[in-house]
């Protein structure tokens, strides 16, 4: 097999470019919105109000019980038939945020529940309201517990954004696909795409370890 080195080098540009202008911003935006949504859903799920916790439970169940690709297609290809037409980018951000929201909600809920009850009581005995105790005492401790699983969610999201290529978002994998189709060098291009995803995920794993060490500074080892 003769190897087209020129193609290898020239195609790295668009692939990395797709990562920088597509994959990474899409991941960051979806994760940020997803986390906010997840916190809200986790709190609803923990609420004593049956209706609110029921709604939250239903949402989590639907997100976790259906494929991400189907969620993406419902929003991009399905909604227009209800008169809601969204561009590829907003569709992707909405779908991924909703998806992260469902998974991260369960992580955050478990993390909040893992904080000992005595911490709520200590907050109350120094006069804090429920909200103050949640924000200043419980969530910082829950954050430490939830960093490892949330980091995993984040890293999965990086890889999952490749699905956005199927709703025409210009990102890493779509760029690789287009060059591959044009040059017919499928193996080379898809391996390149894999390599770039891998490098990004390695970097994130390193950052995750550093963050965990930092958050562990107040815990006995």
């Amino acid at each position, binding site marked *: 097999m003769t190897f087209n080195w020129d193609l290898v080098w020239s195609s790295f540009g668009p692939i990395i470019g797709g990562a920088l202008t597509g994959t990474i911003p899409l991941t960051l935006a979806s994760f940020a919105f997803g986390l906010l949504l997840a916190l809200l859903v986790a709190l609803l799920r923990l609420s004593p109000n049956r209706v609110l916790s029921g709604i939250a439970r239903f949402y989590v169940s639907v997100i976790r019980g259906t494929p991400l690709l189907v969620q993406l297609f419902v929003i991009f290809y399905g909604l227009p038939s209800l008169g809601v037409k969204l561009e590829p980018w907003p569709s992707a951000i909405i779908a991924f945020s909703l998806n992260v929201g469902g998974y991260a909600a369960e992580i955050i809920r478990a993390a909040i529940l893992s904080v000992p009850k005595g911490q709520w009581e*200590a907050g109350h*005995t*120094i*006069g804090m*309201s429920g909200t*103050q105790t949640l924000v*200043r005492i419980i969530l910082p401790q829950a954050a430490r517990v939830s960093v490892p699983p949330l980091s995993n969610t984040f890293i999965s999201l990086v890889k999952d954004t490749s699905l956005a290529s199927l709703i025409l978002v210009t990102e890493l994998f779509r760029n690789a696909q287009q060059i591959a189709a044009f040059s017919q060098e499928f193996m080379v291009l898809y391996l390149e795409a894999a390599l770039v995803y891998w490098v990004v995920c390695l970097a994130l794993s390193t950052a995750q370890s550093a963050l965990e060490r930092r958050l562990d500074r107040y815990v*006995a080892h």
Partner: protein
Amino acid sequence: MSPTDPVDASLVLSARGLTKSFGSNTVLRGIDLDVRRGKVVALIGPSGSGKTTVLRSLNGLEVPDGGTVTFGVAADGGGSGGAGRPLALDFGSPVGKREIAALRDRSAMVFQHYNLFPHMTVLKNVTEGPVQVQKRPKAEAEAEALRLLARVGLAEKRDAYPFQLSGGQQQRVGIVRALALKPQLLLFDEPTSALDPELVGEVLAVIKELAEEGWTMVIVTHELGFARHVADEVVFMDGGVVVERGPAAEVLGAPRQERTKQFVKRIQHEV
């Protein structure tokens, strides 16, 4: 006595007829408790008799099903942001969040398992309430916290995290955290029972000093020797009722009720 009756000015706390059930388990069956300014009340009794539930009810961590809790006017006549004004709660009717908050402002709890905030330094643990809740200036709250920490011998631990402290040190921080709130009443729930025996003394010494200084306290304890030494009054509970109460020397030295006698005898055998 209804909560609107004028109260004896020396009374910090007066509870009447507190009742509480958890499901079908009736834990408090009408508890009365008076605590006078500068006095120490020791609450003793067998496991499950309801001692912790009484303390938690006084601090609003548990809401009783019935009865009243009245706090008198504070010695400083109502400084500290309204927490010094008289307060009367009747648990016979629904009690709102604001009333529970007002109740909490008047006392502070020291927990059996310390319950320090693990993500905050010692200094932050102590200033969190004064700064975030009472809105006192940070510099002032820190100076006060350091003064209190120095008193319990922990000034140099100001920047340590709780996990870096021994149990005895953690409990002393727990006490300082409560003191920093300047409550009218300090509540201790078995403050030494989670400690290794050699660390019990340092914590009891701090509590004894506070008693001598005139803090008003209710202490749940199994340390009967300590209770006899420090408490002005001992209240013996069993099965959700007060069985016997009186001066420490009488209740512990010459109990009148059979149940008290047996309890005191049993505890003294264990020690």
